[in-house]
């Protein structure tokens, strides 16, 4: 390689090198053109979200996120909620009393806030600082209640990994890329 300058004539090796070099340029240019046409046809920036209708509350959302605690949290569609006094998302089935004592709660971190509204209605909201996204409340609510609690990737926390690490671990194939300007798949009435 160093003898390039002292030999004015093109050696066979140098000729081969130039040829391969041109080949490299052509391959890269072709790849660029191909990928750009893909991008033009695409829909722009995406983020990760999970489809609550597919989710089976397996618990992987709590453990497989690159963040700890997970960027997935339980969220509440209040318009679906029955405001039940006996919330099966809030109370452990083995609960001995309908009080807010920790041993009566389903949530392992006590992340659900129960507020009295008017007899006999109670409002349930999630403290996202405490929620770990385990989905226990979601399961309880869906099994025996209105199914107003569900899991979502919270985008103020999610770092939008190139490939969400929960996605391949999800048994229900619930994760997908959604357009960044419509980043939630909410439950509604």
């Amino acid at each position: 390689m160093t003898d390039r300058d002292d030999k004015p004539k093109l050696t066979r090796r140098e000729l081969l090198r130039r040829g391969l070099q041109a080949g490299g340029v052509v391959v890269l240019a072709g790849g660029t053109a191909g990928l750009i046409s893909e991008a033009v046809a695409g829909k722009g920036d995406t983020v990760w979200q999970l489809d609550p209708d597919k989710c089976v509350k397996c618990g992987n959302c709590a453990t497989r996120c690159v963040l700890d605690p997970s960027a997935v949290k339980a969220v509440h569609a209040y318009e679906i909620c029955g405001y039940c006094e006996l919330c099966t998302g809030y109370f452990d089935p083995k609960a001995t009393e309908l009080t807010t004592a920790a041993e009566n709660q389903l949530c392992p971190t006590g992340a659900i806030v129960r507020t009295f509204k008017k007899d006999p209605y109670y409002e349930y909201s999630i403290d996202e600082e405490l929620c770990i996204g385990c989905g226990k409340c979601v399961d309880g609510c869906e099994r025996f209640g209105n199914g107003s609690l569900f899991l979502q990737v919270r985008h103020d926390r999610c770092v939008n990994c190139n490939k969400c690490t929960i996605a391949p671990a999800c048994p229900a194939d619930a994760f997908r890329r959604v357009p960044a300007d419509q980043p939630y798949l909410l439950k509604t009435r």
Partner: protein
Amino acid sequence: MTSTRHAGIILILLMLLSGAATADLRFPTPELDEPLPETTTPEPRQGIWRHIEYVDAAVLAGAIVAASWFAFKRRSRRGIAVVMLLSLFYFGFYRLGCVCSIGAVQNAALSIGGDGYAVSFPIIAFLLLPLFGTLLFGRTFCGGVCPLGAIQDVVALKALKIPRPIEAGLSLFAVAYLAAAVLLAFSGTVFLICRFDPFVSIFRLVPVGKWIEQVAMGEAGRVSFSVAGRVDLLILGGVMLLVGVFVARPYCRYICPYSVLLRPLSRLSKWHVTITPDECVQCRLCENSCPYNAIEAPSAPDPGRHFGKLGLSVCLVLWPVMIAAGLCAGWLAGPAVSRTDHHVRLAEHLRRADAGEETDHDLAAAYDRQPLGADEIHAIAGRVRSRVRHGAMIVGGFVGLVAGMRLVRWSVRRRRPDYVPDRGTCLSCGRCFEVCPIERKRRNDAAASAGEDG
């Protein structure tokens, strides 16, 4: 006491009842005096951070140019190192190491593989800018920009010399890794490179980026100091850095899938750093200055045509054998790889359930929730299996092809009168500039004449 029993009985009753409920909602929604709260939906990124990926791409281009300028025009290791550290901070600790050029290979594969995903412009830039840069200047991206390389460069304190055959053998792992990552990304299941990125957990250990953004947005009050990171990946990263103290940049040399693309481009590059632009006096001082074992000593006197010819012919015969072995390995690995696919997993679950074996109850629940029947699932799974098996064979063949090519290149002797960096493995880090006495003299002269001028 009675109230206790009460609560329990009510709960059980309620569960029995609600199981039979068929109405749209099991419980009527209440009439409250106040409006119901809305479900909150925090945005991904706000304000000036909406399009930060484009800024990232511009920073990447700038950093490649800067690293190349320091490598060629200034011939300054210190300059390269400064660019490298800034880049480590920006792409690593501020932007959390994602997306990176290495991982972008998978986005391209997935985009081509269909499935409705399309790469975005910034990701294309991340994939291609370093490739073009390398075709022009050699691997200045590796030496001065890549955050994964940079974090290893910082800890490479006691580099040991790895014997060349071992070096060559280990680096074949990267070829297989690239091939497997492309295959899995193409089929839309896992992003292998991201899943086992050893340093991303370290970048995310301390949320520097979040702090900067919150302070800049005037929300200093909200700054949180939570530390995050997954333990298994942190251990991987820690081990990699520990090994990296003695084996400089182990990820770069033996694992990095992107290096498989960069190496040949660097061999063909238009320009490439030299230890000194002046004449080498064979003082041997630079011999051990490269922590990556990339400096090649002058070639021994010609061992005779006969040996060279023989070695070459053996390699040329071995080449097809290697390709065939790769094809076989791919064929064997196919079924295991296809198990990452959702429908294959569902089909597996159905098979086990039919056979009366124990099966995963999450998969069972997932099966109940989706609209397809068992036959359709089996049909889809069958198609995926055969496609993956073919893909795996292509991938295996590719590994054999590259391995054979490297062997042939190795067996071809070339005349090398001086100490030169190997264009494929040299990372253009500039360490060798510092030890070459000719280079030091040249620099002192230049400084002296500049002093006279000034």
